[in-house]
């Protein structure tokens, strides 16, 4: 087949995938055995591409699931001590007003962030998704590299949006981080999806705290705290209520 015939066959093939019939194609396939063979190879190629796409999509969800598991497990331990912290804080306020004043003057939203921030660990599993460069730079803690890879990423999916948000947060570029986390949440709302949803909610709240925007952070914090199924529920519950109260009212 000539190169022109090949590209023409590909056009017919793409139209065929869209359900567009072509008498010209029927004729070509009836007359040209070579075209029939090339047609079969095109079918195989696209079958393989779709298989690879699905494999990578499942791989991306697998990483989300692993990350959710990693963040959920250690926080169970912290949760046990949460009651102690809260009770101790209340007693401290009543009994030691001086300490309370000190506490009030020294606690800030950014302080709450600094004391409670934990890095997000990106998965390192098999499955080369389209966010590979971003993920690899993230795993290497090359924050600038993450942002650069994101600029050149083929797809701005939730994974690389989220990881780039995290890179910005690590670099204290709070405004940029907040935009990216919000984009993950918006994407999910649009697609009725949940990929990186809970991660984005938690780290958006942390970003707002870091930027001393307690008013923006609190609705998210309250929502996560009220939802026992949220992946970061235990993590948020371990933040002393007194600190949150001060950050909220200061």
């Amino acid at each position, binding site marked *: 087949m000539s190169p022109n015939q090949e*590209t023409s066959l590909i056009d017919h093939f793409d139209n065929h995938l869209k359900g567009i019939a072509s008498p010209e194609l029927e004729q070509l396939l009836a007359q040209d055995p070579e075209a029939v063979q090339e047609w079969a190879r095109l079918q195989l190629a696209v079958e393989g591409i779709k298989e690879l796409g699905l494999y990578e999509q499942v791989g991306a969800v697998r990483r989300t*699931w692993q990350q959710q598991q990693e963040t959920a497990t250690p926080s169970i331990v912290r949760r046990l001590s949460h009651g102690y912290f809260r009770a101790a804080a209340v007693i401290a306020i009543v009994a030691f007003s001086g300490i309370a004043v000190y506490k009030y003057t020294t606690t800030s939203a950014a302080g709450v962030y600094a004391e409670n921030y934990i890095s997000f660990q990106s998965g390192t599993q098999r499955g080369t998704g389209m966010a590979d460069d971003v993920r690899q730079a993230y795993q290497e803690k090359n924050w600038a590299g993450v942002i650069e890879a994101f600029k050149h990423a*083929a797809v701005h999916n939730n994974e690389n949006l989220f990881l780039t948000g995290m890179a910005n947060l690590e670099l204290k570029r709070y405004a940029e981080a907040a935009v990216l986390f919000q984009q993950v949440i918006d994407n999910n709302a649009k697609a009725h999806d949940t990929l990186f949803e809970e991660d984005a909610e938690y780290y958006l709240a942390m970003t707002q705290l870091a930027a001393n925007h307690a008013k923006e952070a609190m609705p998210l914090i309250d929502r996560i705290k009220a939802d026992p199924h949220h992946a970061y529920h235990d993590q948020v519950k371990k933040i002393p209520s007194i600190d949150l109260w001060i950050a909220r009212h200061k």
Partner: protein
Amino acid sequence: MSVAVKYTDAELIAAIKDERQLNSAILFIYKKYAESTSAFIMSYGGSRQDAEDVFQDTVVAFINIVTKGSYRMEASIKTFLVSVAKNIWFNEVKRRERADFREKAYEAGREVKEQDISQVISEMEQKRALRDLIHTLGESCRKILLLFYYENLSMKEILGHLPYENEQVVRNKKYKCLQQLTGIIKSSPSIVTQMKEIAK
């Protein structure tokens, strides 16, 4: 949305068939079935990594079956997934030619109803071979073909994801990449033979 979606078996099947819900459905499958299936694989000598890789292959195979309309819901999804995972793992053991595992695996495998599953496994292996073939393409070619054929993006939309000058450049690149891939397939006659059934 902060609370994970929960599905009945029938709802899960419907969600898998709905492109917009596919990610939620996959996440639900992981949350509900990954641990128990992985525990099974590990009880047959697989490592944690083996178990997770097998489960990923299992989920891909399950989605393929459902989207083709071949899933008949005769058994629960859990039973079906465990059977598929079990067979994938036994096959993997065989592939690794580790006699100590193999003997134990095949003994246990006899108790499973396998008519449908064996076809799934054979098809899955062929598709894996095809997937490996696609990995010999360059990264840019893989991306453009995935965006067009898997994500179903238009040339204009692809332009927003890749650093090309205009839609015509994207179109030309896509032609070349697809031709490159069919060329690779052409030079691998064994793949063509193996894949005849899938291409039908």
